[in-house]
């Protein structure tokens, strides 16, 4: 299913992180019962925070609702496992005869996780369709509603007062085992196919859709998984405390866990663990200080809530100073890599990246295919077009951005779309790739009607694209960027699937494959974006201003590169650009748009000679009314009379 992926590296990384934290906890726990309690709470917090981080860090959506799941799980396991005698006192009127039921603890914990996951699964259906702040606020609503229910459904939960008598079974070792399971499983998720998709969607949703990723579905998986493990933490928590109350699962816990996430780093599991440890240490230190200890001759006053105060300080300071947290998005393996680099063992200097062979270098393994001219004659030979846009129109707020446009793209040809500013070229591209939906007309790709299809579906049919401003997944490595697309190909069009490493080699990106895409120079980023689109195995490739920002030398190289891509992939290419020498040299056929309409079509030579095209770019010589300029004022030209402009009493 692609939800978990085992690699030695990330498995070991997870284990090592746990061992480190566990070691610290065990060490601390040797100091006596109360210290062991603190250590155990810390480990349980770690489970809950890592659980939350899987969703928050991967989706980029802050969630307050996970504390609610903690509360639900805690209460479910409490209600199910508390002895009947206790329940008769605390919740005598419990529904479903729960007051007389007592399940063994493991079963109760299992039930707690199951029930919470089920509830989360339902809520997630809505949340995963929403974006950013709206989703966060709904999760906040979840927290409040859960709290409200816990307090007010007295028959079930015993209300605002403590629900006591829960069997105390959690000790440090069980907690550590739970943590190990959580970290390992969730790390396996992070690098799995679905995990990769969620992370890609976090980086750039539009780009993710353009390579066929189902953003909502992937996010949903992350949500459910995170609820599952947060629930585990909550259930274990109940069995540590022995008594719980709704107030435990409200703002205080939320503040604590957000401080932990913010400090350590939202984007990595290791970061979450670091955050848990550091905040626990600070918290304990401040609690000790707030109790009014005597140090030497200094008597500190008693201060309530000092450690909670610290959470606020931590959050504010880190948001201003290091919003990525101490670790940012780095996992523990990367610390290892960094150490290796410091000792000079790694060899990825920037200069080799710049010297990478020109894009699209054809590797020896792939033999040259029939020369391009054979393919481009598809238009002339009467073959069927691969893309047919018929009378397509779209308007935004009354403005007709694209007006009754019809174009055809033939297999294997390189086709250009040119025109002045505001002509509708990018709009047309967006219509074809599904980002916009046409108000009128029809778009057919390989015989299928795609006019109203969502971008991700169109991508899955074999349409790849690049964007005007390069949209990579900056925090993902180059390899991961390309892999997201090749995995989509593998899943939906296995006949064109090529392994990601093959594509990396094809584009000469071996040396930068492990680097985060956002750190690369712009030219390489553009190569990566094209490689990613090509990894989809598209039959039609849409390029939006590929030559933007290139100088004359680079644009010549680009012409070669684009031709090579077409030759190797045997796809049709539709591109927009303003660099007319580039377009005229590269494209075999052109459409010219102006003010949303097609005003000319033909070969480059034909287009260059076309009067209408010249007019579109340069404007007309004399517009009506230009003759009168010698006499009148501007206001008169607007037909409003009164030569007020030449009044001198101003």
């Amino acid at each position: 299913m692609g939800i978990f992926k085992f690699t030695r590296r990330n498995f070991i990384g997870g284990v090592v992180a746990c061992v480190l934290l566990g070691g610290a906890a065990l060490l601390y726990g040797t100091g006596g019962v109360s210290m062991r309690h603190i250590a155990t709470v810390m480990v349980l917090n770690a489970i809950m925070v890592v659980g939350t981080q899987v969703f928050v860090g991967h989706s980029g959506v802050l969630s307050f609702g996970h504390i609610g799941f903690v509360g639900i799980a805690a209460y479910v396991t409490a209600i199910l496992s508390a002895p009947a005698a206790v329940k008769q006192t605390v919740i005598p009127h419990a529904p479903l005869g729960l007051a007389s039921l007592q399940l063994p603890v493991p079963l109760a914990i299992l039930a707690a996780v199951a029930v919470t996951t089920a509830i989360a699964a339902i809520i997630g259906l809505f949340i995963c369709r929403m974006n950013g702040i709206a989703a966060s606020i709904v999760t906040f609503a979840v927290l409040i509603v859960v709290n409200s229910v816990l307090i007010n459904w007295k028959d079930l939960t015993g209300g605002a007062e403590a629900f006591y008598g829960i069997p105390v079974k959690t000790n440090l070792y069980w907690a550590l085992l739970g943590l190990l399971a959580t970290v390992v499983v969730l790390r396996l998720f992070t690098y799995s196919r679905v995990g990769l998709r969620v992370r890609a969607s976090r980086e750039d949703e539009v780009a993710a859709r353009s390579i066929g990723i189902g953003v909502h579905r992937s996010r949903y998986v992350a949500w459910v998984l995170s609820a599952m493990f947060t629930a585990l933490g909550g259930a274990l928590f109940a069995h540590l405390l022995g008594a719980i109350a709704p107030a435990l699962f409200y703002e205080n816990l939320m503040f604590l866990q957000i401080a932990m996430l913010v400090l350590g780093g939202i984007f990595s599991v290791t970061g979450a663990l670091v955050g848990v440890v550091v905040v626990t240490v600070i918290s304990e230190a401040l609690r000790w200080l707030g109790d009014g200890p005597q140090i030497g001759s200094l008597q500190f006053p008693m201060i309530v809530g000092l450690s909670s105060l610290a959470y606020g300080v931590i959050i504010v300071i880190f948001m201003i100073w290091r919003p990525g947290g101490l670790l940012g998005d780095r996992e523990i393996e990367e610390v290892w890599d960094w150490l290796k680099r410091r000792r000079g063992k790694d060899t990825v200097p920037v200069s080799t990246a710049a010297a990478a062979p020109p894009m699209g270098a054809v590797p020896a393994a792939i033999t040259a295919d029939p020369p391009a001219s054979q393919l481009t004659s598809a238009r002339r030979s009467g073959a069927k077009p691969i893309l047919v846009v018929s009378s397509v129109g779209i308007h935004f707020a009354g403005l007709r951005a694209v007006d009754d446009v019809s174009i055809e793209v033939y297999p294997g040809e390189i086709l250009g779309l040119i025109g002045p500013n505001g002509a509708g070229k990018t709009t047309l591209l967006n219509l074809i790739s599904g980002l916009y939906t046409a108000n009128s007309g029809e778009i057919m790709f390989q015989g299928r009607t795609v006019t109203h299809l969502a971008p991700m579906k169109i991508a899955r049919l074999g349409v790849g694209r690049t964007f005007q401003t390069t949209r990579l997944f900056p925090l993902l490595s180059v390899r991961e960027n390309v892999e997201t697309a090749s995995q989509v190909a593998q899943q939906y069009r296995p006949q064109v699937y090529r392994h990601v490493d093959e594509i990396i080699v094809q584009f000469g990106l071996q040396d930068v494959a492990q680097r985060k895409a956002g750190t690369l120079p712009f030219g390489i980023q553009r190569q990566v974006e094209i490689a990613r689109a090509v990894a989809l195995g598209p039959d039609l490739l849409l390029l939006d201003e590929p030559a933007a920002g290139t100088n004359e030398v680079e644009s010549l190289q680009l012409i070669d590169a684009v031709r090579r891509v077409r030759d190797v992939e045997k796809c049709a290419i539709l591109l927009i650009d303003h660099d007319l020498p580039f377009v005229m040299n590269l494209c075999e056929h052109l459409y010219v748009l102006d003010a949303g309409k097609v005003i000319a079509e033909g070969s480059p030579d034909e287009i260059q000679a076309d009067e209408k095209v010249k007019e579109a770019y340069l404007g007309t010589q004399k517009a009506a009314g230009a003759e009168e300029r010698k006499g009148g004022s501007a206001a008169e030209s607007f037909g409003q009379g009164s030569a007020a402009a030449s009044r001198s009493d101003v």
Partner: protein
Amino acid sequence: MGRPIPVAQTGAQGPATSAGPCATTMLRVDRLVTRYGAIEAVRGVSLTVDEGEIVAVLGPNGAGKSTILASIMGLVRPASGTVHFLGKDVTGMEPEAMVRMGVGLVPEGRRLFKELTVNDNLRLGAATRKDKEAAKNDLETMFAMFPILKERRNQLAGLLSGGEAQQLAIARTMMTAPRLLCLDEPSLGLAPLLVSAVFEMLLDLRSRGYTILLVEQNALQVLEFVDRAYVIRSGEIKMEASAEAMQDEKKLLHAYLGVGD
């Protein structure tokens, strides 16, 4: 700057010829380099505008024209190069400061405040002027120059038609009492007749003492109204000449499109 709009020069009809050797250089841009994301949108552009001139920067879309104006105005920081206004180095100064220095920008797409009335839009232009009397006078002048705005003074700016909106955009910037008026594609979205009217209005402004720098795609129409022009393509200046010299279409097309006939 609270300088009132100067009295119209009597007898001034038609475009003045290029300012003589004693004219002050109002704006000087030297080897400006600006990046837009990771793209170098402006690569070493140098240009000057003398007092009393109307200068155009022409070129196809994506050439970097808007970025030049944005760099001058401080909306975006140049990577290198300098901008001098009236002799002072204003490179990278914030837009608010540039306005106070006397540079006004009518941005691309106008960016009117649609939820505010025409009157409010205009008043906002004068928001930071110290001389309230002068500002009031200027408001009256604007209404005199653009009677349709006076008629619609209490209507929401979002309800204006294209031509009216362009008038409001220009009037609003005029209310900031600029000495140098920059316009970013004022003809965008306007019918040809209105485009001429806009350019004529600029001539009128010049006759009142304003210096104008405008960025346009619509080359041939513009060339009749300006003194000098630069053609920019791919971030670099490809041609610089007086308006008459530029009307040789072949050369212009070559500079513009990079392709000859």
